[in-house]
């Protein structure tokens, strides 16, 4: 088995530092909520639908209470009180909160005890919905075992959910194990989740609950007809991170792109907002048994993949620390890393091999996610196909868990049917032709591959020391990750962050937290 030297002491120290970094942020998280979190809670309790103008009721309610300066009590507080006051269902209660002529200002009325009692059944129902979806998924997976690792992951992105469904089945037919529907270009900056099935979208398809249902049904069909479990993936990311996590949890999705810092760095979303949102989304994800895919691979599209390889590793430790705090288990952590080194650099393959193996060894129980070359792809689709083959080879040789397949048309368009077919065919070949390669070779203990691994871990450790010293807020504002700088109070969605009242109420989050 080919391994690189990994100093366990250093790894332990990295974890310790990452934990300290997360602990610092957790104080902030515990003291704050966001409009996204509160909308999530409403959805989880069963608030559904849109107004005549198409605005989701959860937005109407949360915005109303936010404007009134009452959101710091937690929307569940008001929901509970509405139920005590006679609303026959959560739905009715939510409507009351949204449209009711007089607003509950939170004073007087039902006692805490009454309110708790009123909301408790709804909390139980919410948890049961997650558990039910999780159990159904498990059963289907038992009946139809997934393929061998590396699991072959492809994206579909027609913009039209019905076409996506067709593409997903086509991908499964061609050998895909995981199908992700990527989102429309602008969705992550929307501070609401669109409603219903959608058939238009640039660069991807909107994430909506109905779309999740449609696509899940399609992949389940593919699972049954092909006899191999097909995983469904979407994005719990952007301003509605937590709401989408809920939707995915109850619609039985298997994986979610979800990262503690991606939105900050790549979508210029405010960091306070993101840290709070990621925590709540991950609490739901933990319960749902969903695997997250973190976004460190993206760092190497804006920063240099050779010089900044260590930032991927240090961020993985941080993402892990945040995830553990939200109750996720190692088996749910699809930490992301990528094959983004300029292919024309001499020995680039060795550098990639080294990094992939290092990550594999440091996170042995994690379903790590291996991302293909993208940045250096050009429109020479033939060359790109070869570039991807080398990536596939590293994937199978270093035993990556999840492999997002490269597309030869990466620099041209969102993948088409043909592109996915050819990509899957090539990956099937490389994975099979090199099946036992990793077991057959060893790396020279003092060679280029080994030395590179040592260097990357050392640099990651060094960076984590710095970040722990300065705090992540400062580190990000100095461009520690992805060569991108963001300020603590800058970015989108900052005004959606609310400091919790001393009597903030959130029974669902409490229940999720009680779990771990």
């Amino acid at each position: 088995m080919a391994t690189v030297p990994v100093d366990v002491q250093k790894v332990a120290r990295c974890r310790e530092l990452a934990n300290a970094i997360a602990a610092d942020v957790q104080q902030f998280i515990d003291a704050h909520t966001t409009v996204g979190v509160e909308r999530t809670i409403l959805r989880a309790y069963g608030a559904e639908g849109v107004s005549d103008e198409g605005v989701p009721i959860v937005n109407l309610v949360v915005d109303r209470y936010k404007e009134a300066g009452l959101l710091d009590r937690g929307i569940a507080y008001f929901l509970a009180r509405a139920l005590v006051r006679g609303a026959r269902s959560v739905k009715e209660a939510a409507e009351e909160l949204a449209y009711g002529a007089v607003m509950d200002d939170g004073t007087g009325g039902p006692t805490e005890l009454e309110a708790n009692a009123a909301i408790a059944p709804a909390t139980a129902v919410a948890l049961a919905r997650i558990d039910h979806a999780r159990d159904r998924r498990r059963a289907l997976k038992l009946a139809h075992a997934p393929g061998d690792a590396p699991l072959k992951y492809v994206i579909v992105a027609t913009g039209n959910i019905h076409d996506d469904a067709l593409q997903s089945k086509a991908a499964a037919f061609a050998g895909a194990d995981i199908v992700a529907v990527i989102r429309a270009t602008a969705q992550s900056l929307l501070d609401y989740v669109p409603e219903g099935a959608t058939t238009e979208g640039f660069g991807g398809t909107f994430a909506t609950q109905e779309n999740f249902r449609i696509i899940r049904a399609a992949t389940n069909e593919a699972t049954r007809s092909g006899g191999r479990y097909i995983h469904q993936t979407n994005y719990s990311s952007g301003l509605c991170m937590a709401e989408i996590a809920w939707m995915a949890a109850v619609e039985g999705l298997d994986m979610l792109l979800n990262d503690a810092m991606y939105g900050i760095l790549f979508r210029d979303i405010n960091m306070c907002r993101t840290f709070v949102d990621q925590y709540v989304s991950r609490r739901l994800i933990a319960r749902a048994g969903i695997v997250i895919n973190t976004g460190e691979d993206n760092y190497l599209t804006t920063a240099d993949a050779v010089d900044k390889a260590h930032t991927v590793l240090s961020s993985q430790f941080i993402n892990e620390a945040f995830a553990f705090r939200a109750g996720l288990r190692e088996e749910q952590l699809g930490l992301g890393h990528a094959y983004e080194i300029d292919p024309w650099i001499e020995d680039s393959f060795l550098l990639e091999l080294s990094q992939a193996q290092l990550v594999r060894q440091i996170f042995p129980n994690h379903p790590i996610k291996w991302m293909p070359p993208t940045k250096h792809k050009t429109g020479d689709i033939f060359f790109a196909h070869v570039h991807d083959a080398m990536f596939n080879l590293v994937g199978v040789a270093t035993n990556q868990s999840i492999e997002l397949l490269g597309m030869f048309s990466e620099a041209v368009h969102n993948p088409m049917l043909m592109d996915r077919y050819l990509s899957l065919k090539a990956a099937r070949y490389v994975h099979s032709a090199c099946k036992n390669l990793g077991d057959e070779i060893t790396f020279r203990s003092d060679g280029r591959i080994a030395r590179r691994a040592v260097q990357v871990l050392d640099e990651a450790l060094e960076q984590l020391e710095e970040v722990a010293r300065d705090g992540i807020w400062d580190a990000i504002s100095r461009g520690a990750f992805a060569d991108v700088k963001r300020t603590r109070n800058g970015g989108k969605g900052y005004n959606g962050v609310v400091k919790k009242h001393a009597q903030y109420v959130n029974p669902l989050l409490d229940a999720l937290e009680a779990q771990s």
Partner: protein
Amino acid sequence: MIPKELIRAYGDRHNDGMVQMSFVLPIVPSARAREAAKIFAMEHGLADPLVATMEACAEGYTFFVVYGRSKHAVDLAAIEVPEVSTRALSRDEIEAIIKSDIGRKVVVVGACTGADAHTVGIDAILNYKGYGGDKGLESYKGFEAFNMGAQVENDQLAARARAVGADAILVSQVITQRDCHKENGKALVELIKSQGWRDEVLLLFGGPRIDHKLALDLGFDAGFGPGTKPSEVAAFVVERLREKSLVRGGLRSE
């Protein structure tokens, strides 16, 4: 009139028409070259052509990859394609038909003709080993198969076939440069016609660039392309022999 049944290229949505092209133009890379590639693509009927890459591939030559939405559609209803019409028969069924309906060994002679030295294809059909797990005609009790190998001249093949009283002649052609396979094939058919025994023998044509339609056009009885299995060939031969009642009036009894 038969209603049209139009199909178009498919990228990711019904009828989006997306196709990929690649080619080299004798021009150096430049904005002008890019425009030339676009125009070239449009001449082929591609709308919104996208020049994905433009690279110098030799002095004075540029390699292009282009994507575009093809405006063309194919009317399936208007396509008439002869397909080799035989039911798929199992090995046992074939042996049984030969035994019961033909009552003697079916004799076939095969060769790769002309300057063509590619025996792998004809061997796959005739030799015991066969192709992809499907055993060759030699392995059948009911067949007597002569494999003359490669680089066989048409007249030698014809002479041998007559000599052994072949029910079928199997011609393989792999080299197709400047259509030499067509000329070679046609020449054999004409030779046999001129010798006056075309009706007494089945002529099969095969190879990676052969299809049934082409074979019929050249005067053969059937054509077999890439991936052909020996059992398909065996099935065709016995079925045709049975149908044509060549059985009784065949070469053998002359």
